[in-house]
């Protein structure tokens, strides 16, 4: 065990919450899609509940194959278009609303506890065992904050964690398979990397550049960062490819550009791409699903004017400040 609150433990907790969704959803007799939905959530819980154990017991190859089969099954179920809840969800009688501070305290606890996690708790140790797993700070912080807020909610409203999981099925049901999208897209990014997509993109970008130019490579670097980020859904994946392919040979070595502003702003060009792509699902698609937006691309559409403006400004800034 690497820490008291470990990544493995949090994965199990995620698995349990997702599996309980499957059970809770089955009671919604008004939901015409409840069986497909339950099967979908039950399948999605498996990699969290058993992923680590299987890799240890079966060896990587067999465990990855099993996870691959789950992935294909999830996609096929989603493709049937019947994962999202349809029809009336069972309404519990609305309880007498508790005073404002009792409701707001647990909600505000989420950012406050996260703050404590990243500043203080991360340093706490019991003997040689750290309290928090530092390998993945976001996961740990969300886990601790989620559980603390849930307990506070229980104490202040009287609603049990089981009721909480059952009531969150509205969120799961409305969002449906969009909640699995971030992982699927990260998987696709992994396949792209395995297929050397970066080399092809680099080849494509470089083919337009002649040595001795300054403006054109700057524009291609900035646009390339944005476009390749849109393909990968992640600026960190695009950065080494575009920087090694264009920034280093044509701008830093070829034109004597200052590396610090060039690369810092080049990364920002990639972030402009992140704002524009459904591939960055955890930023653009999951929020749209959780906020119950009918237009799944609405968040991207609202971000687009700012993102395009900033991309142009960024490219201009590189041209002015890096030389």
């Amino acid at each position, binding site marked *: 065990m690497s820490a008291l609150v470990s990544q493995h433990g*949090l994965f199990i907790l995620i698995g349990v919450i997702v599996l309980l969704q499957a059970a809770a959803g089955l009671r919604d007799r008004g939901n015409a899609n409840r069986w497909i939905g339950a099967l979908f959530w039950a399948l999605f819980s498996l990699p969290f509940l058993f992923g680590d154990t299987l890799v240890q017991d079966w060896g990587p190859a067999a465990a990855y194959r099993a996870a691959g089969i789950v992935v294909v099954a999830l996609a096929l179920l989603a493709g049937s*278009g019947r994962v999202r809840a349809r029809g009336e969800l069972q309404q519990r009688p609305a309880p007498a609303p508790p005073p404002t501070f009792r409701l707001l305290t*647990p909600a505000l606890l989420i950012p406050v506890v996260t703050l404590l996690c990243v500043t203080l708790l991360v340093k706490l140790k019991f003997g040689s065992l750290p309290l928090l797993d530092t390998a993945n700070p976001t996961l740990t912080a969300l886990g601790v904050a989620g559980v603390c807020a849930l307990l506070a909610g229980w104490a202040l409203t009287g609603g049990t964690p089981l009721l909480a999981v059952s009531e*969150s099925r509205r969120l*799961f049901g409305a969002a449906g398979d969009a909640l699995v999208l*971030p992982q699927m897209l990260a998987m696709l990014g992994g396949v*792209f990397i395995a297929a050397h997509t970066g080399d092809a993109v680099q080849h494509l970008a470089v083919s337009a550049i002649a040595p001795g130019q300054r403006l054109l490579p700057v524009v291609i670097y900035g646009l390339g960062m944005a476009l390749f980020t849109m393909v990968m859904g992640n600026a960190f994946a695009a*950065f080494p490819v575009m920087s090694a392919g264009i920034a280093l040979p044509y701008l830093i070595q070829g034109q004597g550009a200052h590396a610090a502003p060039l690369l810092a702003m080049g990364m920002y060009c990639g972030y402009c791409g992140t704002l524009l792509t459904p591939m960055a699902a955890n930023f653009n698609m999951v929020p749209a699903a959780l906020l119950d937006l009918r237009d799944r691309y609405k968040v991207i559409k609202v*971000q687009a004017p700012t993102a395009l403006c900033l991309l142009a400004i960024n490219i201009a800034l590189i041209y002015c400040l890096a030389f």
Partner: protein
Amino acid sequence: MQQWLPLLGVPVMVLGFALRLNALLVVLIAGALTGWANGLDFDALLQLFGQKFLAARQLAAFVLVLPVIGLLEHYGLKTRIRELVVRRRAATAARILMLYFVLRDLTGVLGMPQTAGQVQTVRPLLAPMVEAAAEARHGELPAPVRELLRAHAAACDNIAIFFSEDIFIAFGAVLLIDAFLKDSGIAGITPLQIGLWGIPTALCALAVHFLRLARLDAAIERQVREHRAAATVGP
């Protein structure tokens, strides 16, 4: 020809998303085609899928926060937030978004991006506040305006955090740039310099987005008015 094969998945994604096919299915097809075009057999592809899917499990971290949101909304969190916002006359949708933008910038600059986010703060707090503020001023909101405001809440969080977290020197992006510089044999650039060069864009992001938000309240009023006018015109 051979060199373009790795890109085969990209047009598939674009086409699939444009046709609004189910996203998971499109991703699966794009992945399978890309793998197949690059000589992976079925079993190797299945294993690659599984490996990458398992490696990306931390992306589901938001699931850990959904139960408490479900619980609080069951007990009427949205109603309570509405009551709080409505009492403050100065709180308009755009002003709340601007305030949140600045606070979110601070979490980034101080290196604490996890303290807020789409699931932690936007869904339970910011979106209901923005909606309630607009409702208090303009009355019942038509569905498209409601969607626009919610999308603005999500966008505000993304834009503010993306263009501020790079200023903090221990953030992943700065470390990645630093590692790239070392690999490329470029010496003499400290993470602090990289962080400082993030400031011009961060300020531009703030300026550009605030200019847009400054016009949001008026845009909402116009849309609500147009919607009412359209609704009262009989056949």
